[in-house]
């Protein structure tokens, strides 16, 4: 067309918006209930059902990385200063890749939809097998143990009010057609909030448009995309309006999944000592250059060995793939990393710690005042602000005092059922949960979040509980990670609708045995 360099001619800003098989959704991990044949851990990685649920993309490679470890007991005189936080981060830096040296399960699917499953470097031995997709298979490991595996379509085990969450953070693309070039118009500069803001017409519920944000989107209006009010919205009865509806936005949806049930003694040679199984997932897509490997003298690796520097830790197969997504902890992406591509770090997200603190500060200024307005106690220090505030931080030192309590407070559990052996297991804290970004399964617990993640856990609501003050009580019961699931709490609060933020159960029953996630619709 023209005598100049013109990548526009082969590009479109719309080219990357289709749902991708690389989009990881969730990772679940918990000890199997039946221990008659020895302890077993269940790990399930779910991702977009593309091309469709039950059919996997042959260009993808999925990794489930697993690192067993001791349970860390906190010292009595723990340093909870910013320096202490940074010391903690420094302590885990390199731990996963260099010290724990995670093992991995690698899955690809060929053109015939056969899954190629490989187990690398586990104490129980490395092996590979080709299996049928969409059916449970028993694999025989080199050490003779049986590993259960399922690769294929399942029902989406995530049940939550996703539009509610996006309304709480004023995330425009859920509600509007946002031009791709308007990168500043994703999370709008409106305070995050659990309660609707008076005059926030860009996001407040519109009874005339019940589908708005649930598939239906408006065109982004011209004019200001901010909010200039100074109070929460109240109805004629003095009730606040909840941004959540409690409805399951994922109902009726299917996904693809890789589900494993693995003997603990296959994962670790020290099962009595290594009671923690850390797991995270990665999606990789084949690089373009890989498709033409029939041309032997591929100059990328031969002529330019310098290019290997960045990839020196990858094996030959992974060099042919590009990392797209990682998934370890629920909400680590959506809430804390803002889903930016360059923050897909998995267990190596330690360097994001400063961002994590600043992001929590930003969220706290939104959620904290809305929690207080309801008469509920928050762990975030918002100077008794009567309304949510939009505030961002450039300096971690400035944000840290605000979020210190939130970061270091132990998250109470609703009862003792999570700890069936009644062992001395410390309650988990946000700082430990999100950095590193792994699903950390405690084999002496039930694996309910944050001691892993069970399919039936309402993690979206538990995530919100991070912002509560865990030393406070409601009707004589100390706040805990499921307090926001308690209908009596909502009945007592000046809010409409009087509902827990997210559904309490999935739209279909989970299975009590492998593969645990329900079959696809």
């Amino acid at each position, binding site marked *: 067309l023209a*005598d100049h*360099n013109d990548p*526009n001619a082969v590009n479109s800003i719309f080219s990357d918006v289709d749902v991708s098989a690389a989009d990881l959704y969730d990772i679940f991990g918990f000890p199997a209930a039946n221990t008659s044949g020895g302890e077993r851990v269940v790990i399930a990685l779910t991702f977009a059902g593309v091309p469709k649920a039950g059919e996997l993309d042959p260009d993808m490679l999925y990794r489930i990385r697993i690192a067993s470890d001791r349970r860390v007991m906190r010292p009595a005189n723990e340093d909870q200063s910013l320096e202490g936080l940074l010391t903690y981060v420094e302590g885990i830096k390199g731990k996963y890749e260099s010290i724990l040296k995670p093992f991995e399960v690698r899955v690809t699917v060929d053109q015939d939809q056969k899954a190629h499953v490989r187990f690398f470097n586990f104490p129980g031995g490395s092996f590979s097998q080709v299996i049928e997709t969409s059916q449970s298979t028993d694999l025989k490991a080199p050490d003779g143990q049986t590993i259960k595996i399922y690769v294929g379509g399942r029902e989406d085990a995530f049940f939550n009010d996703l539009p509610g969450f996006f309304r709480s953070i004023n995330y425009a693309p859920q509600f509007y057609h946002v031009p791709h070039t308007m990168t500043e118009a994703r999370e709008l500069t409106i305070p995050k909030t659990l309660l609707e803001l008076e005059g926030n017409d860009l996001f407040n519920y519109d009874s005339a448009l019940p589908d708005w944000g649930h598939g239906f*989107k408006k*065109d982004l*209006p011209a004019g200001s995309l901010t909010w200039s009010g100074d109070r929460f919205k109240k109805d004629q009865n003095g009730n606040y309006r909840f941004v959540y509806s409690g409805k399951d936005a994922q109902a009726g949806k299917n996904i693809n999944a890789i589900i494993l049930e693995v003997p603990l003694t296959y994962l670790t040679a020290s099962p009595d000592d290594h009671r923690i199984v850390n797991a995270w997932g990665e999606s990789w897509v084949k*690089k373009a*250059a890989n*498709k033409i490997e029939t041309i032997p003298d591929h100059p990328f690796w031969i002529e330019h060995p310098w290019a290997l520097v960045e990839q020196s830790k990858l094996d030959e197969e992974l060099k042919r793939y590009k990392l797209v997504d990682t998934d370890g902890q629920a909400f680590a992406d959506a809430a804390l990393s803002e889903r930016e591509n*360059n923050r897909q770090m998995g267990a190596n997200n330690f360097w994001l710690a400063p961002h994590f603190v600043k992001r929590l500060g930003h969220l706290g200024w939104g959620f904290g005042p809305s929690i207080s307005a309801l008469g509920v106690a928050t762990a975030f220090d918002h100077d008794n602000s009567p309304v949510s505030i939009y505030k961002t931080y450039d300096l971690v030192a400035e944000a840290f005092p605000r979020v210190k309590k939130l970061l270091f407070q132990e998250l109470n559990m609703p009862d003792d059922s999570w700890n069936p052996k009644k062992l001395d297991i410390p309650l988990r804290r946000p700082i430990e949960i999100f950095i590193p970004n792994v699903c950390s399964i405690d084999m002496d617990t039930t694996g309910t979040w944050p001691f892993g993640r069970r399919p039936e856990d309402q993690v979206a609501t538990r995530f919100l509980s991070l912002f509560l003050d865990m030393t406070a009580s409601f009707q004589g019961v100390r706040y805990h990670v499921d307090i926001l699931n308690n209908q009596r709490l909502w009945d007592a609060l000046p809010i409409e609708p009087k509902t827990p933020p997210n559904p309490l159960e999935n739209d279909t029953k989970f299975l009590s045995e492998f593969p645990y996630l329900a079959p696809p619709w």
Partner: protein
Amino acid sequence: MISGAAMTDYEVELLSTQRRIEEIVARNRQDLTANSDSESRLLYLRFQQISMTGEIGGLDPLDGAVCKAIRCSSRPSDLWLLRAWIALQLHRFADAEVFLGMDDSLAACAPGRLVRADVDLQCGRYSSARVKIELALADEMSWEGLARLAYLTYVMGDIDAADDLYLRAENELTVKQMRSFAWVEARRGLMNLARGLHDRALEHYRRAESAYSGHWLVDERLAELMGVQGRFDEAIAAYRRLYETSPRPEWEHALGDLYFLSGELSSGYEWKMRALEGYLKSTSHGQVHYLHSLVDLSCEMPGQSSRATEWARRDEELRSNYLTQGALAWALYRNGESQEALEWLSKALASGAVSERLYLQAACIYAGVGDVDASAKYMRLSRAANPLPAKARCLLSSHPGLRVSHRELMTVPFVL
């Protein structure tokens, strides 16, 4: 009807694009709430279709449709970007800058920055282009940004660094983007061709062909390479195949060159006249994207040197870069206006661009004004940049005993 199994990658994607367009059109007809997103997507798909086929005549009507859509959109930033892309393709650089300034979002987003860099590059603002590309890459590592940086680096003469950047661009591409991969490979091939590295060029073209079959863009590069290597019959056959699928003046021009170089002067003249007609038709419609081709062709054709100067001035006014400055200098020189030719040549050389073509023009112009030392210097630089330029190589190889003087060299028609 082509069966699925026999279709090339290009045909498959073209068909898929057409189907997606039809789906959106059908949906918009039925859905009264059709929104700006689907409209933008439709217009981008149409742009993609035109870009894929190279049927540049579709850009003006598309621009009209985009303009209309902008009037109906509450947030037209994507559409302004698309207008800027179209303007860039049509060499309406001032328009592109205006469109990029129509929405604040385009100043901060990576695609906006990259198109601004494209305009800078065309307007000879190389440092500014680099800054914008690097800012875009800092925001988001992308193959598009790396490919632009590679091109800029190549223009400034560092072919190894450019190739490394192209490699990094390829490393960002996945199997879902094979057309883009083929495009980058074709660029790498072209870069090597311009440096006289024909085998490497062929290797890259073959890789492009293997990555994404059936694309005319790669076939064109292969045909060009055949011509450069003196394989005129094969090159002519290849260009004729391209021409049969899409009769474009630039391919008439190429065929004219090839027939001329192969000694079939009357056929060469006939094809060049057809090309001239096509270029002039375009300019008569107010289009400017063939001005550079008109300059080249007019410089080669007898009695056209005065017109060549006119076209060259117009192109230089649109985009003052080392290529247009050099082309104007060359046209002026051919028209006997040596002093002004030297002024424009100095500007072009001051750009810092490393160009065999520019150096060869300089060698000829300096020879023409009697500055033998300068001529020799630029001839050396030209040879260093590309040991044997395409048509000079052909001429020399067909006349092995010929000793070419500087004076004679100025008569060598070359278009790289």
